[in-house]
């Protein structure tokens, strides 16, 4: 597994861009790959104000009054779903929540038919989680409103990546990630969180390290190599390694990913115990990171597997902050997406170029 040690690039040209706020032009948010750095900064600034709303005596504003937000979750989730619904309610939106286990999906209704039905019932913003990578792109093709991806297969989890970025910025001087070492340790292969974080953290100029057993890094080294070849101008490169000590040494941010038992078919790991012994974040390993480093986890945690209980509950852990920031980030995204209506219809790139995404992200 190659270990890139070269400096992560922060392009001066992009950084010198004026502080003038950019506007939001995306009708959907399916991954952060098509979101430019100024747009990410707009999300961060809008999130700041949403945090302000959450600190008020009345934690609710009428910004999305009368707008209809529907959550459609084909996969189990509590925190993401509740976070989206809380965010929508804080903006005074009307929330409809579809649990597929009790819906017509169990009678064999297709995704497309379900989405058409929800639209006919008045859904304007569709928050969707699906076990199939790419399902939200199909949804975006048939749905007349906005699709906000709440996680699809192994592909993307953009709101998690953005709340992770927001949380890191809160803990770093000036909120600047340039050159800061971020180590993500765990089941990278099956992780949509890791994939979305690659886009946003390299855009932020972080020195990103992905670490896990070789079987759980498959394909990532090729991606990392392509990156350093300058695929996306202005993005930092990232590193892939199975050497957990190298990944953690002098890290500013340490993030553990859940070992996803439900996706662990085909003997990718000898045992969870062996994983915990070789890669689990314990106090000794975390001590390799900088003294002020923070410890993150997107949840839900398997304490004692990918993260030791004393690390998860230590003063460095910002895991509950991540959850709280998640509501504010999702409020910001619902707010921004809701504005990209009527006038913006049809302006988004079609599925093929959006899935490729690379040329747009470079702008």
């Amino acid at each position, binding site marked *: 597994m190659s270990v890139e040690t070269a400096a992560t690039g922060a392009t001066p040209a992009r950084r010198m861009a004026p502080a003038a706020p950019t506007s939001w032009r995306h009708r959907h948010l399916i991954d952060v790959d098509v979101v430019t750095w100024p747009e990410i900064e707009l999300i961060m600034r809008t999130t*700041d*104000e949403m945090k302000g709303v959450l600190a008020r005596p009345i934690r609710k*504003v009428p*910004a999305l009054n009368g707008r209809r937000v529907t959550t459609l979750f084909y996969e189990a989730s509590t925190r993401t779903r509740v976070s989206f619904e809380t965010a929508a309610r804080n903006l005074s939106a009307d929330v409809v929540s579809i649990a597929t286990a009790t819906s017509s999906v169990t009678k064999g209704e297709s995704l497309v038919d379900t989405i058409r039905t929800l639209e006919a019932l008045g859904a304007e913003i569709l928050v969707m989680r699906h076990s199939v990578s790419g399902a939200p792109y199909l949804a975006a093709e048939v749905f007349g409103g906005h699709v906000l991806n709440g996680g699809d297969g192994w592909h993307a989890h953009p709101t998690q990546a953005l709340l992770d970025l927001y949380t890191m910025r809160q803990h770093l001087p000036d909120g600047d990630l340039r050159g800061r070492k971020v180590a993500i340790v765990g089941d990278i292969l099956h992780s949509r969180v890791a994939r979305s974080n690659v886009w946003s953290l390299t855009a932020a100029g972080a020195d990103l390290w992905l670490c896990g057993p070789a079987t759980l890094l498959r394909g990532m080294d090729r991606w990392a190599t392509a990156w350093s070849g300058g695929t996306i101008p202005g993005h930092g490169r990232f590193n892939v390694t199975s050497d957990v000590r190298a990944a953690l040494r002098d890290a500013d941010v340490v993030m553990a990913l859940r070992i996803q038992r439900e996706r662990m078919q085909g003997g990718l790991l000898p045992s969870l115990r062996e994983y915990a012994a070789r890669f689990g974040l314990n106090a000794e390993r975390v001590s390799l990171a900088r003294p002020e480093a923070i410890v993150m986890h997107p949840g839900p945690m398997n304490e004692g597997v990918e993260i030791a209980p004393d690390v998860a509950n230590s003063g460095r852990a910002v895991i509950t902050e991540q959850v709280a920031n998640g509501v504010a980030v999702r409020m910001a995204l619902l*707010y921004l997406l809701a504005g990209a209506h009527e006038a913006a219809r049809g302006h988004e790139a079609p599925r093929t170029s959006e899935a490729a995404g690379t040329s747009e992200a470079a702008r």
Partner: protein
Amino acid sequence: MTDRQIMTGDEIRRAIVRISHEIVEKQAGTQGLALVGIQRRGVPLAQRLAAAIEEHEGVRLPVGALDITFYRDDLSLVAQQPIVKATALPFDLNGMTVVLVDDVLYTGRTIRCAMDALIDFGRPRAIRLAVLIDRGHRELPIRADHVGKNVPTSREEIVMVHVEEIDGADEVTIGRQDRSAEPAAAGRQ
């Protein structure tokens, strides 16, 4: 079409001094007074009013900033969401007399939003309104308690208040709408 100047920097300064006296006179003192500027140009105007009051009363009033974006009633009419600016009310509104400060009073919708927003923060004893320019054409039953200058306008005209803190110079101009591509003008309600 060229813009015509309707207030000079000196005239703005005198209007601020006069309004600062009016505010204190109406309250019969400075007790329980607070100033809240509406983003963006209401904020520096509120700070100037506070400075003027401090000069003649020797009391520094609390000053806040209010962004009304989340309270606008026209979000479904604009193509893109307005950029959200900071709200900072570093004092307890309960029982205070809050003077809202804005640059231009036009339809009154901004002020309605501002009152909605303020009331979410607490229960002021009274809310008053000070504006530098009142240009008429109200769409809501709202009036200002303190006005720098009344300017009769047509709906096609655009009144632009420039303040040094944001625009580099103090002046008020009036122009025609055909240049309304300017974001500052288009963003005003």
